[in-house]
């Protein structure tokens, strides 16, 4: 959920906030759609798809969260500078 900005300053929905939202929602869609990965094939080094696919999502979601973190930080800095001016 985006933080609400004080009225009259900046738009609440900005492109970077949309990207942040998507980055944070993507893992939920992927992981809760169990039917999309509940299968054994293809295997990877002998490990069934079900397991390596979910473990692959660990680094993927970490990268997505990191992107969200960078974007949020950048926006906060921009807002602080805006406030100083």
């Amino acid at each position: 959920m985006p933080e609400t900005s004080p009225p009259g300053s900046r738009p609440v929905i900005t492109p970077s906030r949309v990207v942040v939202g998507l980055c944070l929602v993507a893992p939920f869609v992927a992981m809760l759609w169990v039917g999309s990965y509940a299968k054994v094939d293809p295997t990877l080094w002998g490990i069934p798809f079900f397991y390596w696919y979910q473990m692959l999502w660990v680094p993927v979601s970490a990268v997505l969260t990191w992107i969200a973190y960078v974007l949020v930080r950048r926006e906060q800095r921009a807002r602080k500078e805006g406030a100083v001016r």
Partner: protein
Amino acid sequence: MNDVNGVALGVFIFFFLAVTVMGFMAARWRAAENSQNLDEWGLGGRSFGTWITWFLLGGDLYTAYTFVAVPAAIYTAGAAGFFAVPYTILVYPLIFTFLPRLWSVSHKHGYVTTSDFVRGRFGSKGLSLAVAITGILATMPYIALQLVGIQAVLDVMGVGGGEDTNWFVKDLPLLIAFGVLAAYTYSSGLRAPALIAFVKDTLIYIVIAVAIIYIPIKLGGFDDIFAKAGDALSQTNDAGKPRGALAPGEASQWAYGTLAMGSALALFMYPHSITATLSSRSREVIRRNTTILPLYSLMLGLLALLGFMAIAAGVKTDNPQLAIPQLFEDMFPDWFTGVAFAAIGIGALVPAAIMSIAAANLFTRNIYKDFLKPDATPEQETKVSKLVSLLVKVGALIFVLSMDKTVAINFQLLGGIWILQTFPALVGGLFTRWFHRWALLAGWAVGMVYGTWKAYDTPSATQKHFGNTTDIPGIGEIGYIGLTAFVLNVVVTVVLTVALRALKAPDGVDETSPADYRADSAEPAAPAKRPAAAAGTTDTAGAASGH
């Protein structure tokens, strides 16, 4: 029963002694001038940076019980036990959105527990008490399970004693381990587990790395492991149902998803997660941690695969909790078995310490100070918290020694359902003041009653009661009871809020302001709770190492 494994036991004792020394020395580590303050004992002075927080949270969330129970679940039922991985994936995007807000408002107002926040936000001691009691109730069996983890290791090493030894000899090692834990938690507070977490996590990472390479080589590769495990899981029991599968079937997918989701929502409602979070230096530290904590989830996934290895290696045990320790004992040379067992044993001490501190803080702040002694000084608060941390541990010990292990496991399952019912008040409160305090209390009560009743009513794989998944009313799929209770809780809260607002029921006083939820560490903190000198040192430390 096994014979005593001397080498493994020697290595185990070595590591145990090492962390004991560290635990007592921790009192002096990054110590503040004024140690008689609950912020110091109970939150490590709110001074921990990115890496310490990473180790502390990792050591706190991925407990010894997790390390034993997750592969044990795989060993018992196959794919269904793997939900721990999507669960820990979903946790981080979730806490990314709300924990920084909680950190800021707690920093601003000197809140130590979630109940402190709920009281301040909704001006309701009743609601705050409900959250505090739920937290304590959910934490107690969790501490007990850490003991179960230590017991499993001691059993496999052969020091748990046989059936015929008397109870005192049998439980003595556990009593010693817990006595030591209690003593250094009492003297060093949150600093002790923070320091010991370094050792615990390093050991765990080494053990997993070795296990995930060494054991498959010995067992002929993952192809063989999964072929054997697939065969074993498809064997049918007396009722004609297979033990499990390598991938969940159509019918169990909802259960898998709802368990992952419900557990993810619940994890950061637990007092010990919040205690570790609030001990960090800034909201940046928390956000940064959500991007590096998933390394533990990766480790958890690898660890879960050990369950399949235990099946493939032909580990036979009546108690699935012993499957992984037994696998280590069978596979590793003795000295490395000792390292692995030390990792599990120390892995139990860190969360047990943090959990007892968290439960003690809840009692002190939200029961003792709010209801028994409103004019308690910070020194008295710290004293009470220290004592309660001892009581909580003794309680957990009695729990484990006097009752069957399944009781602790059942209560932990209920604890997960219960703690999830505090979500609307806490996370809802972080984003909006719209919910009415009485509606939140009613929603909480409905969720608690429904969840407890349903869990009791549902048979699990091994017993008549305390299953965790059952029919979701109105959907016709099997789902996690905690999540259904949570949805019910939210519905009741929303409906009653609309009604109470229409009736203009008196609203509590909100002591927070919107800006508090975005406050950063550079801004002044609550003057009453944090003496200026202490706040100054923390912030300079923050600036010096802030990179």
